[in-house]
């Protein structure tokens, strides 16, 4: 390990410690804000973990997020909390493997549409089941988890996600990840098992997203399918990752923080026009920064250096 990585890890550790200490200094509103922000940072980073290297645009984020939240809703009174999280992660993993195996051969826009449909399908299935089998719609979650507890869990999940992304970039797979979205013929003839690599990435990303849903669920107290399977979550995650640059470790983070704050401010000040402004922001980002902020800054620097 070089001195540089050591310093990097040390700085990351200090930042993490400072963030973890935040609830002791700031008020409850700050904690609420940080829960939402950390949640989206993890969602966007996990999204980028799969979609960055593979260049598959997934709108299934909320499918897994909702699975996580709903699992907590269903099991919170029958199982101890850590076990509920584990079960949620396992369900997310199982769904990801089934979905991945059947769809990762789809290319481009077909995959986008499929993942969007998947989220909708799961929502409708859950709704149907609740109405016809259990005879309810919506569930209460009474868990003795404090907002600080939720925040720390999300922070830990964020740290684990970054550590995973960073670590995998330093292994043999890191090099493979750089090229699987490029030329599949050549990549497979480098000896890369493309299907398995994609599936593994999809599964890891899905499990992390599922956990975000599960960890955040107790915040709501009351959940129903239309809340936890709200497609806006998928769109926000996507646009945050794209703004920062999905193919870089820190890209989604850099996109998630400003956009989350912007959306918070918009929904507080312009609740009626929020969806319209959201749409305009989407369009602006795709037109002005198609490859993300980091890539734009890099190419600017490169041009400046050449002059």
């Amino acid at each position, binding site marked *: 390990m070089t001195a540089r990585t050591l310093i990097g890890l040390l700085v990351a550790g200090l930042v993490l410690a400072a963030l973890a200490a935040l609830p002791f200094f700031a008020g409850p509103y700050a904690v609420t804000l940080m829960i939402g922000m950390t949640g989206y940072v993890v969602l966007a980073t996990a999204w980028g973990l799969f979609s960055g290297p593979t260049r598959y645009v997934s709108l299934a984020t909320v499918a897994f997020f909702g699975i996580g939240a709903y699992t907590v809703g269903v099991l919170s009174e029958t199982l101890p909390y850590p076990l509920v999280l584990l079960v949620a992660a396992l369900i997310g993993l199982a769904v990801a493997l089934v979905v991945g195996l059947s769809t990762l051969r789809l290319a481009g826009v077909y995959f986008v549409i499929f993942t969007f449909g998947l989220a909708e399908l799961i929502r409708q299935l859950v709704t149907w089941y609740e109405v016809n089998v259990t005879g309810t719609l919506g569930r209460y979650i009474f868990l003795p988890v404090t907002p600080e507890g939720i925040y720390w869990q999300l922070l830990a999940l964020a740290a684990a996600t970054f550590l995973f992304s960073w670590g995998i970039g330093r292994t043999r797979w890191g090099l493979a990840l750089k*090229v699987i979205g490029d030329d599949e013929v050549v990549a497979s*003839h480098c000896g890369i098992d493309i299907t398995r690599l994609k599936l593994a990435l999809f599964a890891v990303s899905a499990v992390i997203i599922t956990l975000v849903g599960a960890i955040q669920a107790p915040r709501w107290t009351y959940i129903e399918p239309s809340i936890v399977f709200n497609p806006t979550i998928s769109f926000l995650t996507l646009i945050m990752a794209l703004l920062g640059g999905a193919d870089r470790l820190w890209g989604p983070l850099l996109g998630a923080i400003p956009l989350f704050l912007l959306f918070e401010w918009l929904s507080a000040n312009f609740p009626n026009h929020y969806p319209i402004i959201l749409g305009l922001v989407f369009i602006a980002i795709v037109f002005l920064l198609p490859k993300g902020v980091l890539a734009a800054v890099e190419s600017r620097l490169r041009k400046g250096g050449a002059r």
Partner: protein
Amino acid sequence: MLEIRDLSLHYGPHLALDRISVAIGKGETVVMLGANGAGKSSLLKAAAGLVRPDPGADIRFAGADIAGRPAHLVLEAGIALVPEGRGVFGDLTVEENLALGAYARRARAHGKASRELVYGLFPKLADRRRQFVNTMSGGEQQMVAIGRALMSKPDLLMLDEPSLGLAPVVVGELFAALGRVRESGLALLIVEQNVKMSLSIADRGYLLEAGRIVGEDTAAGLMNDDAVKRAFLGATV
């Protein structure tokens, strides 16, 4: 070493290969000749595991049945492919491309030695190891592609139209390099439009027409074959 028997291949209703049988011995250099659409590339793709042949095809490599195996496992068996176009990753450096070539399990332990071998064959690449491949010329990129394929320590190297789109002087360099690759003991299977060049380094060749093998001879024999001369060498016999 590579034995293909009764290989047929359909793309939907279209028959691309019709019960083809081809054999390549150890260290042999074989050329596939044929017009556009004759099935040359399909043959390479089927052998490389990029397309699935019709049932009943028998493809053996060094005794192992590899018919229908996915590409990454065909590579592990010892067959490397330089696909048509540029089989390189433009956003990576020469060195990274070569490192990817040694990704296969069979090649991992030999990365360093293979790299020396590649730089020995293509000294130009050694000087440019840190250069991004998309800033290099077509000929240089093709050398990176061949180098990348060699990094997997193959026993058979298959090349699909390696000279396509290259300037004549570069084509000469390329075939000189392929001649050196051949001397290192590898078997080569080359699909090429440049018949003269490819026959000059080959031991044998096959003639493909509309998905069938219609001829087979030594390189010298094909060079003097009237049909080959008429079709490919521009002679008016």
